[in-house]
């Protein structure tokens, strides 16, 4: 099990990095924000995908729920995103509960496919109801630079906002791993039928993991909307994004800090390829895919574990 020392190092590193990057390489500050953004998404995914072993390609749908809820509340009712983000989280939790009650009964590949379809349905609905969501044109948030509206001219604000959400996601993961629920979730991952036979209410615990994961993802959705001030159905409820979230956690692994490592690594890598070969569109993802295959074949339980065991 993890020693407290390691947790403290990670937390300190995550808190110091934005400030250090802001001072040293301000022109690349957005890369740090993206790293944290993906790390947080991976960490939220890990609750259902890693701990419980229910592979979901549906998390970007909850990102969309969070982003659209807080944005629409702000635009139509002048509700601050600070409040809207929790409403979005609650709405995503309810959505995931409704979806989970039906689709979590499915096993393995069937659950994967249903979550895959769910993202597409959310995207199509967001694009269709143009009178509410403005369709594929997207929604633009006004530039107010006011902290009360969760906006700021200073990028450090966004760096620490996403760092806070990331640490929240990791803390929730930590709390679960230390609780009875966490052990039940691992039992479900290893052998669902056996867990059931031993009296674990598997449906209830799987739904709990799904709801928690969706809630955290929706909070990240509000961050996304406030950071870019522009959201569209295809940029939020998107299958490629959903897949990328899962890849982060698969490459990282399912340990506490593994998705964080995965998010930082993959975004750092994507940034490197883009900077080195800006003229070739598609190359970054092609290389990314090859790397992914290599990781899956050589170290199926993730880079984090590999690093811990070999270095």
């Amino acid at each position: 099990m993890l020693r407290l020392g390691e947790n403290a190092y990670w937390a300190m590193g995550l808190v110091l990095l934005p400030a250090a990057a802001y001072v040293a390489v301000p022109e690349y500050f957005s890369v740090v924000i993206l790293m944290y953004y993906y790390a947080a998404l991976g960490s939220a995914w890990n609750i259902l995908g890693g701990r419980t072993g229910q592979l979901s390609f549906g998390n970007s749908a909850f990102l969309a729920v969070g982003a659209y809820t807080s944005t629409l509340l702000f635009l139509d009712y002048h509700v601050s995103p600070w409040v809207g983000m929790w409403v979005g989280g609650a709405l995503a939790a309810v959505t995931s509960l409704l979806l989970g009650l039906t689709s979590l009964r499915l096993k393995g590949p069937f659950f994967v496919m249903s979550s895959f379809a769910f993202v597409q349905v959310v995207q199509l609905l967001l694009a269709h109801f143009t009178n509410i969501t403005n369709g594929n044109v997207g929604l633009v948030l006004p530039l107010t630079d006011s902290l009360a509206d969760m906006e700021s001219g200073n990028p450090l604000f966004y760096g620490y906002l996403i760092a806070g959400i990331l640490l929240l996601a990791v803390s929730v993961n930590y709390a679960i791993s230390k609780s009875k629920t966490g052990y039940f979730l691992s039992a479900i991952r290893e052998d669902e039928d056996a867990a059931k036979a031993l009296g674990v209410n598997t449906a209830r615990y799987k739904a709990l993991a799904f709801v928690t994961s969706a809630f955290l993802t929706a909070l990240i959705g509000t961050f996304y909307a406030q950071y870019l001030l522009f959201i569209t159905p295809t940029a939020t409820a998107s299958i490629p994004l959903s897949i990328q979230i899962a890849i982060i956690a698969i490459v990282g692994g399912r340990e506490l800090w593994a998705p964080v490592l995965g998010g930082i690594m993959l975004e750092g890598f994507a940034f490197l390829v883009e900077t080195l070969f800006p003229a070739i569109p598609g190359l970054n993802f092609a290389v990314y895919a090859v790397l992914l295959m290599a990781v899956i074949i050589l170290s199926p339980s993730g880079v984090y574990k590999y690093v811990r065991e070999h270095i």
Partner: protein
Amino acid sequence: MLGGVYGVMSVGLTLIFGVLRIPNFAHGEFLMLGMYVTYWFVVFTHLNPVFSIAVSAAVLFVLGYFFQSQLLSRVSRQGEVPQIFLTVALSIFLSNAAEILWGSNYRIVPVSYTSTTFHIGLVSVYAPNAIIFAFSLFLAGLLWFLLNKTHTGLAIQATAQDPEAAQLMGTDIKKVTAVSFALGAALAAVAGSLLAPLYPIFPTVGSYFILLMFTIVVLGGLGDVKGAFVGGTLISVVLSVSSIFVTEDLGFALVFIMFILILVLAPQGLFGKTVK
């Protein structure tokens, strides 16, 4: 009319699921490669795109065989998760490799008969659709023959039913698995070649079809070859009928909601036998 080709593209997916027990997320990209093979074939030879079917089937058969026997088989003992992610990685790789090689512009296969229609009684038929439909029927027959009348076909069916028993009976499981994957990939490529004269071709065209293919195979029952054709026809009817009442995007949303419901309520498909 497109029901037949929906069937051809999905039957490969169902075949792969039947033997490997994983959904192949790279299936849309196999279809995309089939479309590009046809495009380049027509551009270079100026022949009818129908003749490119053999080429694209052969190319994708080799690619599929290589991918399964060299990569997928390495993680086949570790359950479905690594295998699913390998097909996901392959799908990302292929669509981006296509973008690097051929750019992201839409390409159209130049054929002479795209705008021809002829009439049977009161029904007017669009010529490319008729050719595609006839070919799909022919392929369905060919596939039936392959699976039921040849040794390899029977071995594929046996492996899908019970891999251990098949192995005990002397089936070379490794080879059969690779051949099934290769055959599935080739079928996707054939569907791509058939569709090429009708659809614009671009690197991410596969992602447009993949969810539709999942829906079709689940509707027909995963692993059920006949079901894939019935499901394909059904979905094409649902899509064209719903397009009368609602816009196209909402039609797709309805199909995918139907897909989730079928998964939950009748995972064995509409016609499948109940498993376990």
